[in-house]
């Protein structure tokens, strides 16, 4: 259970609070402890890549950040706002569904299995949430979606249904769909793991383009090359804790922990 502590939200500095701040996050599913005390800070415009073996808690951490999973202990802020709760007079109050939806609307998420809506065309997938959640006009949403699909190299696929697209194209539509909500933070949960090798490059190119444009991104990935070139920070997780974090080139070429070395020797 989460109990109130004396912790206050981080002091908003000149550039505002960090985009994501996690303190002592714990998450368990029944008796299985998945996150066991995660401390993390993601600055604005930072690209953080998270690597680690499967079952190390990477995806769970990502899902906690937009409250798809409830944390059991610790504190989590996105853009200076407590995720899923409101703290008043030393007490925590659960947020209403509407407030949680509003928080999620500002955080984009891209899934390993794309999760496009199969009964809608690519364009309809992208404009659905801006119209229904943000109340954007259909004309404005369609215009924005056109730009985003164009940027993802899918200008001529707007009227295609997901089943008619390749995995790489579907994932790029999924990225456009998340970006259409104009989020301040993007979460990528192994975005290229379900793709055929020759389709990975196109998706990574779109993500690289996004990183260059200044989007704050947290990317759970097995693409070490992408982490090295695009990431500002590389985090290695194992058994629910952050083992090592630092500049990607340093962590990759000169890992300080034995567990990091053991993992890297298997994937590099």
């Amino acid at each position: 259970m989460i109990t109130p502590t004396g912790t206050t939200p981080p002091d908003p500095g000149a550039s505002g609070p960090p985009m994501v701040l996690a303190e002592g996050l714990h998450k368990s599913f029944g008796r299985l402890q998945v996150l066991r005390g995660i401390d993390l800070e993601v600055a604005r415009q930072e690209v953080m890549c998270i690597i680690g073996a499967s079952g190390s808690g990477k995806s769970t951490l990502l899902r906690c950040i937009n409250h798809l999973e409830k944390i059991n202990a610790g504190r989590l802020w996105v853009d200076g706002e407590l995720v899923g709760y409101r703290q008043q007079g030393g007490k925590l109050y659960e947020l209403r569904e509407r407030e949680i939806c509003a928080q999620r609307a500002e955080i984009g998420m891209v899934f390993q299995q794309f999760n496009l809506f199969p009964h809608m065309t690519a364009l309809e997938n992208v404009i659905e949430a801006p119209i229904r959640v943000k109340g954007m006009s259909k004309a404005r949403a369609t215009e924005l979606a056109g730009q985003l699909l164009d940027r993802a190299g899918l200008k001529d696929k707007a009227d295609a249904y997901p089943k008619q697209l390749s995995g790489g194209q579907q994932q790029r539509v999924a990225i456009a769909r998340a970006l259409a909500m104009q989020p301040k933070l993007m979460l990528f949960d192994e975005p290229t793991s379900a793709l055929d090798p020759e389709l990975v490059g196109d998706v990574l190119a779109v993500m690289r383009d996004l990183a260059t444009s200044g989007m704050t991104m947290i990317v759970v990935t097995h693409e070490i090359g992408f982490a090295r070139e695009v990431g500002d920070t590389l985090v290695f997780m194992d058994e629910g804790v952050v083992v090592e974090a630092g500049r990607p080139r340093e962590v990759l070429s000169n890992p300080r922990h034995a567990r990091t070395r053991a993992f890297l020797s298997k994937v590099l």
Partner: protein
Amino acid sequence: MTTPRMAETAGRTGPPEEIKAVPVRHPGRWLAAAVVLLLVAMLVHTLVTNPRFQWDIIGTYFLSSRVLDGLELTILLTVVAMAIGIVLGVILAVMRLSANPLLSSASWAYIWLFRGTPVLVQLLFWFNLAFLYPRISLGVPFGPSFLQANANDLITALAAAILGLGLNEGAYMAEVVRAGILSVEHGQAEAAQALGMSRTLTLRRIILPQAMRVIIPPTGNETISMLKTSSLASVITVTELLYAVQLIYSVNFQTIPLLIVASIWYLIATSVLTAGQFYIERYYARGSARQLPPTPWQRLRRYLFTFHAPPPAPPAQLPPGERR
């Protein structure tokens, strides 16, 4: 190394010679066909020669106004009871899947009660409601009432039939809708939530449209079943198709001809519904199936041209962009 040479050889021989072989004979098939034809001939013979079928009486009553009124009432009962059943079914299915344990238990109990008792018993129960509640009133629970009515005036035979059939159908439709909702992958709801969509919006825009493909076929089934089940309302004096012909033959004693009249009308109505169901299913299969199943006409044409083997489905491929 070997591949180019093989290609050369293939190029030299030109198009392959088509196989001409004597087809396998199927004596068993011919025998079975002969037996079936014999049985059909016997059936036709008895229909034509047995005077007790009294086809002239069937002809007289087939389009009589009392029979047609009964048919109209049967269709009305089917439509209204199914409408109640579908609306109730969606509500019960959503309640059943709700996180609130009270709502989901209430839905479970409703389904348990209405599926667990015969619909005929339920019809009789509603028809005799006045024994349990002689007066029905509308007002504040445990408080004053604004409207009062005699149960016998309010619950007519027709109202009892609609209530009985509709409420019973709700329990079955709830399970159909629930199966449809559960058939939609969990990732869909998650993706919608991650976009900031609320639970109701997710259900309405993402889950239910996808669940429709699973919901439609059994709903068609339920409708056809309802058309026939509505004949049970004859027991509580609703003059639907069956009771209408019963009233006629109780006077003129032409029992068999009039039952045949009713049966033919039931067959016509179910045939229309079956055809409707086929085309609705075909419509919802778009986008999910690469190949649509052939229509009965396409199938018939194929059978006429190739007698001995059921043909493969004709390539009714959709042009891209026509899916939904």
